[in-house]
């Protein structure tokens, strides 16, 4: 039997998978592989010809102190942001899985910063660090608020961390809540009858049972922080003295401020390899710790 026209298998394959494959091929796959080639060229982005320079870009990168500093900053920032946002998110989730009356309202409020884009969040906080903190400092006399928050390297670092934690912990909280409400009550009750304290129950029963959620939350926080761009662009622009310049911002500046597209793509290739390595490593490590109830 010969099938005809629209019912032919290859036509169906084309109709169903064609459009999405085309968009993916042109927007993701093609530029990704072109980037690999451009990493080995010198190219200003304007002219059509990129000169092949071998490993020159990579030699330059390993001597580029600003890039190395941006990696150091990104690493430190990621560690601080992942730990703090998960701690805050987890504590909020613990709080909201208790029978508190206002939990729906509280959940909405804690989640709210997350829906606002990083760029606008950074601007809001720029005002708070510059003007808001000064006013609070004047009223309370606490010297913490009178520091030049965005003007000093240490406080600017923590400024970026604070804004990130404020905006992401609500999202992580939602993930932890959905895991916590599925922890079987009888296990917790059995443990309390056996004399386990609240801390012991949390440490030995709740946490192991919600490890899948921990995997997801850590994975998300890790990839958000490591790729941080918008918040930093609008909050500090990478300053003071490039001290809060993330790798993503460094690549952006190299490509679009300095017009070194070849060098920029080489940096982006290194960035990709590092992101791919840490995320797979992290998922692998936490997956091994998951247990069944």
């Amino acid at each position: 039997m010969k099938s005809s026209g629209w019912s032919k298998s290859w036509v169906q394959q084309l109709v169903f998978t064609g459009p999405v494959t085309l968009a993916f091929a042109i927007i993701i796959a093609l530029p990704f592989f072109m980037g690999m080639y451009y990493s080995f060229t010198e190219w200003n982005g304007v002219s059509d010809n990129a000169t092949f320079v071998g490993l020159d870009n990579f030699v330059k990168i390993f001597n580029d102190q600003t890039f190395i500093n941006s990696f150091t900053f990104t690493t430190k920032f990621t560690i601080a942001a992942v730990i703090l946002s998960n701690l805050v998110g987890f504590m909020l989730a613990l709080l909201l899985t208790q029978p508190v009356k206002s939990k729906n309202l509280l959940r909405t409020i804690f989640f709210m910063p997350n829906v606002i884009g990083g760029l606008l969040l950074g601007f809001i906080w720029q005002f708070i660090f510059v003007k808001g903190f000064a006013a609070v400092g004047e009223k309370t006399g606490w010297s913490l608020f009178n520091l030049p928050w965005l003007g000093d390297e240490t406080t600017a670092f923590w400024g970026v961390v604070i804004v990130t934690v404020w905006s992401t912990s609500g999202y992580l909280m939602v993930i932890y809540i959905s895991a916590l409400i599925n922890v079987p009550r009888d296990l917790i009750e059995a443990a309390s009858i056996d004399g386990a304290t609240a801390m012991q129950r949390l440490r030995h029963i709740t946490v192991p049972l919600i490890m899948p959620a921990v995997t997801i939350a850590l994975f998300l926080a890790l990839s958000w922080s490591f790729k941080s761009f918008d918040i930093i662009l609008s909050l500090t622009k990478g300053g003071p003295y490039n001290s809060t310049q993330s790798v993503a911002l460094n690549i952006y500046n190299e490509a679009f401020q300095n017009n070194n597209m070849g060098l920029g793509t080489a940096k982006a290739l290194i960035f990709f390899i590092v992101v791919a390595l840490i995320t797979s490593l992290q998922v692998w490590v936490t997956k091994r710790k998951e247990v069944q109830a």
Partner: protein
Amino acid sequence: METKPYKGSTLLLEIIGVLLALLFLVPFYFLVSNSFKKYGDILLDSAALPNPWTVANFTRAWDIMNFPASFMNSLVITVSTIVGLAIICSMGAYRMVRHSSKYNNILFMLFVMAMVIPFQSIMIPLIKVASWLNLTGSIPGLWFAYLGFGSSMTIFLYHGFVKSIPLEIEEAATVDGCSPYGVFWRIVFPLLKPMTVTIIILNSLWVWNDFLLPNMMLGEAQRTIPMSTYAFFGQYTKQWDLALAGLVMGVLPILAFFLTLQRHIIEGITAGSVKG
């Protein structure tokens, strides 16, 4: 959990929760209250309530930012992207699940693997590809780019969901003479609705808030809300009265979206990340 009695310790937790919520809201207080102040009053005391209140900042910022135009651009881009992604990705994922040939499995693997590629690893050559294909400087061009960037995650989410739909219904429809396209649009797509809601929510938050891609692809003439906020803030640095009014206007649409649909949004996000 509902059966637990309301004890003194719960009251304490309630108070802690409310205090934390107030702390979370402080930035919004500073943002909103100062946007209604005259410039001098902001410098004088940014923690006080406005006295007198003024809306002059808003009318000026509205005009300078050309707010209605930016709002419409953001809306058109976001809506067309989520509709386009829902259509092409549900179709693609459906085919990949139901005809899991070697080719389709490899294709699906490519979509999944691409999820770890950071935007920065694509953006530089993308500009070149986009200008070859005349995608720069136009909203349809940006729309096409969003279809590419959203495809990986959307395919991945639909793929997992299609697998959970029983095959029997489709077989029955085929026996009754329904074409493969009819089976998909009349039977499968309606069954995908919970995942479609999740996908619409995740993608609309992302596209609405995205700054870098539209900034690279559109020109000065067509601005989205994040772009016009960025331009406005750059132009009026330290002119806090105008800048804050502009920020309030930039934040309001997405906050209104969230507050109206918050239950769906929080559920959608949980479903999206637990599956992902």
